[in-house]
């Protein structure tokens, strides 16, 4: 497994997606530390569990609150968030502080390679290359991790 064993928080209101994603994260060699279905739950879990990475859907049980969740957990807990949404175009330009986005529908392989890529980025502080197919980085993180160009391929 490339990179370190990340603690991953899943924020997704569709229970089948969340369950499968949890399996997938585990299979890829990381630790799923919890699943949140609403924005309050997500912020509470992020504060108490201090995950390395939060996978956040934009539409949660209490509405399109995923963007605010990302902003809060980024500002309050310094948690790195990654959007997983079918509505990539509706994300704010600054990604609300998230490191990037995986567009739905994603594939099993797409998520695994994205996680492996991000694990290396977080561990080493710079990107091992261009992001894999399906993953688009936020401009701020692309710069932080030493990439000058960020093709949005998700």
């Amino acid at each position: 497994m490339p990179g370190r064993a990340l603690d991953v928080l899943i924020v997704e209101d569709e229970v089948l997606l969340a369950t499968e994603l949890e399996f997938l994260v585990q299979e890829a060699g990381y630790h799923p530390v919890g699943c949140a279905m609403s924005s309050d739950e997500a912020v509470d879990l992020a504060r108490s569990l201090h995950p390395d990475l939060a996978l956040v859907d934009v539409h949660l049980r209490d509405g399109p609150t995923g963007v605010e969740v990302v902003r809060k957990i980024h500002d309050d807990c310094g948690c790195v968030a990654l959007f997983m949404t079918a509505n990539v175009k509706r994300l704010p330009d600054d990604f609300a502080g998230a490191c990037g986005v995986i567009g739905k529908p994603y594939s099993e392989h797409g998520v695994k390679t994205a996680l492996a890529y991000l694990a290396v980025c977080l561990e080493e502080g710079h990107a091992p290359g261009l992001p894999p197919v399906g993953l688009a980085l936020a401009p701020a993180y692309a710069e932080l991790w030493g990439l000058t160009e960020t093709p949005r391929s998700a």
Partner: protein
Amino acid sequence: MTDYLKSQRASDQLAAEHGIDDPFAAAIRATRMAMIVTDATQADNPIIFANDAFLRLTGYARSEVIGRNCRFLQGPDTSPVAIGELRGAIADGDDIAIDILNYRKDGSTFWNALYLSPVRNKLGQIIYFFGSQLDVSEKKQTEQHLRETRSDLEDAVEARTRELSLALEQKTALLHEVDHRVKNNLQLISSLLLLQNRREKEPAVKHSLRGMLERVNAIATVHRRLFQSEDVERFDVSAFVRDLVSDMAGSANRDEIRVSLDLERVDVPASKAAPLALVISELFSNALRHGFPEGRSGHISVSITRTNGEFRIEIADDGVGMAEGARSTGFGLTIVQLLCQQLKARSETTATQPGTRVVVNLPVNGAHH
């Protein structure tokens, strides 16, 4: 001598100079156009002549107008700007044509197309003013009506444009919503298949589930790409193939199989994207899964080229070939055949020893219809 008498005398003098046999004077008296003459040499420039048409137009008797300045025609709604212009022209000794709102004796109004011009003597001094009046109320009304109609029309167009913009906005929002739901539902379907696959122990069932997952993923890859470009009608096949092949080859986790792509950019109508994606996915999966058993290494190439009126999609491998690697396992091949029929495409499979080459020829823009 009173003003009236003075004016009457000036009038008599004018009449004497232009007697009964003067055809010009007769014409002015009898014309249907209202006309007056004022005496510029008298104080306040009084009217000394008014023809019958003027009296008919204004409703006054001759005795009521002779000796008066013609400002008695003005009233409360007469434009002060127009009055100012009129005064300026008289003071400067210029002629002037102006539309001005005037009042009749009975208080009713009419639009007067007034023409006023100075008459000079031999020394160049202004001695008279000649004025002609034309009732243009109807024309003004028509103009006003036209202005109102045009303004109404502009309002209506603006309102309709607003409605249409709003409708378009709503339709766009709806399209985004539907797109969002399609993507989420595809994600849900693929998660369901993955979950069941995790629980399943029977290898044959797992194999079937994997096959279905691959097909759903192919359609999902199409939808990820579909609304990315501005043109929602066209679909870039080369970009899609790059995504699909990278995902399938990556998830197969077979580093010993090299994959090369040679893709010309070709667009197909969005409606053909999903069936074409399924065909390509099926053929590539076939090569990947059956061409290289037991860790056999090799090469798969995928190319898309455009030749006279057709897209040529070629998937070739140097694997074990058709006979050895139990290919065309029924369902996959059936899907390819059925979809080629739907796409009006021709598919040819050739044993290349080693390996297999499948070529799909697809008519551009339904040219073979």
